[in-house]
């Protein structure tokens, strides 16, 4: 075989499982669309238009912008979960971390309206607070795992519920916006609103920040000592321990950074779209991010591609619901099928060996 065709064969082998699960997902989607009483082709077509903005009538940049806006938190949560997984920690708590990060940003942002501080100082401060909130919320389960051996899958899931209820409580009783009816915090200072790149779309510079974080993640994993230690701990904790790496500390650190990224995602939602905290601000991003991480193979480039893909998918599903009244839940179902399919690839990165 020539060198070129070997490469092509390798690329095909990498992409094939993803394609197969995609096709399977589309078939399943078609079935459900039929159940909803709509024509699968029209519905899937509107899904496509909504995702990419490529409508028959011309390019609709607004739709594309919405997809990218949707992809922003997915990107951040995707790297967050990937980082955890690379260290051998399964962070299912992104939803809670994102919620608390959003709350932190909203609180500081609203308080900031009283002080004329420059946005250049304020925005990083906001993001820092959000990252801190998320980091703490993830570090606790991480620490519980290293200290008492409680599996972080359960603690992070429980912490999701705790975070959401805690946030609800704080907003209802202590931080409520007196000027509005809903259960939400005050609006954040105008100075820190991120301006949309496409009017009305919610796509802001946050998208660039998310991309930058992804690139940073990639580089850090490959080129820094911490990245090396994380990978070592994830792939072979006992060997890492013998090599002198402080395994427990790395595990907690990885969870903390993972939580920080998720917190950041929450902050960006507040800064770019809602401009305040309201319940449900983290939506389903916490779990979607897991799918993104798995599908993307837990590396920077893969996560970027899959975040964009899922962002388009979910945004398109909403559009499809508007156009054809097929419930957007079809998007969630597609997601589940893709995870199941993509998980087959995940097997190679799994910290549990396939033999027992």
């Amino acid at each position, binding site marked *: 075989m020539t060198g070129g065709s070997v490469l092509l064969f390798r690329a095909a082998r990498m992409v094939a499982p993803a394609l197969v699960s995609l096709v399977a997902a589309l078939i399943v989607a078609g079935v*459900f669309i039929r*159940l*909803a009483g709509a024509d699968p082709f029209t519905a899937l077509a509107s899904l496509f238009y909504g995702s990419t903005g490529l409508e028959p009538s011309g390019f609709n940049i607004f739709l594309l912008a919405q997809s990218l806006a949707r992809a922003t938190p997915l990107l951040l949560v995707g790297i967050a979960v990937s980082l955890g997984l690379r260290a051998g920690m*399964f962070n*299912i708590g992104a939803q809670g971390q994102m919620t608390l990060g959003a709350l932190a940003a909203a609180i500081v942002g609203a308080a900031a309206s009283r002080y004329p501080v420059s946005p250049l100082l304020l925005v990083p401060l906001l993001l820092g607070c959000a990252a801190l909130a998320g980091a703490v919320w993830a570090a606790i389960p991480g620490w*519980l795992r290293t200290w*008492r*051996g*409680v*599996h972080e*899958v*359960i*603690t992070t*899931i*429980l*912490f999701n*519920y*705790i975070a959401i*209820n*805690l946030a*609800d*409580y704080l907003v*209802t*009783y202590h931080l409520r916006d007196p000027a509005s009816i809903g259960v939400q915090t005050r609006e954040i200072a105008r100075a820190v609103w991120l301006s949309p790149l496409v009017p009305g779309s919610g796509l802001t510079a946050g998208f660039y920040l998310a991309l930058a974080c992804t690139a940073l993640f990639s580089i850090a994993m490959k080129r820094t000592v911490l990245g090396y230690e994380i990978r070592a701990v994830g792939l072979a904790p006992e060997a890492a321990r013998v090599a002198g790496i402080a395994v427990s500390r790395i595990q907690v650190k990885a969870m903390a950074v993972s939580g920080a990224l998720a917190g950041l995602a929450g902050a960006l939602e507040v800064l770019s779209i809602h401009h305040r905290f309201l319940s449900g601000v983290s939506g389903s991003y916490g*779990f979607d991010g*897991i*799918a993104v991480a*798995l599908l993307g193979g837990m590396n920077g480039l893969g996560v970027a591609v899959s975040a964009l893909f899922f962002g388009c998918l979910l945004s398109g599903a909403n559009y499809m619901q508007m156009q054809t009244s097929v*419930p957007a*839940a*079809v*998007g*969630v*179902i597609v*997601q*589940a*099928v893709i*995870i*199941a399919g993509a*998980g*087959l690839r*995940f*097997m190679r990165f*799994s910290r*549990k*060996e*396939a*033999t*027992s």
Partner: protein
Amino acid sequence: MWAEALFWAALYGAVPIVLAGLGGVISERSGVANIALEGFLLAGAFVGVWAGQQVPLIGVLAALALGGLLGLLHAFLTQKARLDHLVSGLAINLMAAGVTRFLSMRLFPSGIEVPTLHRAPFLILALCLAALITFVLYRTPFGLRLRAVGENPTSARTSGIDPLPIRYIAVSISGMLAALGGAYISLADVGTFSRDMSAGKGFVALAAVIFGKWKPLETTGGAVLFGFFYALQTQVQISGIRAKLFGIEWASPALLDSLPYVLTTIALVAFVGRAVAPRALGGTAE
């Protein structure tokens, strides 16, 4: 009396957790990690209401059937397709959430109400199952084989035990139990279905399994404890106590809602130290 109401509320609140927890024990003891209990619960709750609109009992049977099928799916994905157990569980949870949401939007857009079943039979059934499963697990050849498969499938195989069918059966049973728990919630407890109504009970059940060190009776005990946490929350809300201390409204609905999860976490942390999982948990039937 206040305490008596709390006692019964705890027991009845524990029923879905006990059922799902027992399912978790069986599945994990055979070596298949099962975080899909939440999805099984939700699916059972939905199907129970959907199929049980005229005759609630049919809803229960439908839930059992669906739970069994979903269990088979999880077993297939983890053993044959070699999916990571956590990934498979996650996918099933998402699938259950998406499909139930989809179907409930299409079929009952304005909600649905069904006549409720009596709760007592479920409670009795749950407790009897706990005893039965303990007996089967420790005193029957099948139970022994199941435990062997969960500890070391390879040596089980050399002893002539094929791990694969045992795991399929075990996970299928766990699906049935969890779905039954879900059907209890929707048919006997509230009489309706609302989206995501399982509210994390499947995960609390898993916590009960770990808390109970993968043993059926201890798991049931843990489940009752966690049921107590849930009941505490509702009872305090009903009683209308207001407790304001240091400027914090301790008895507000939102904080109380978090109580079961906080207490469950504390219980896990305090008691998990000596828990040892089945050695072959999370692997394939090699």
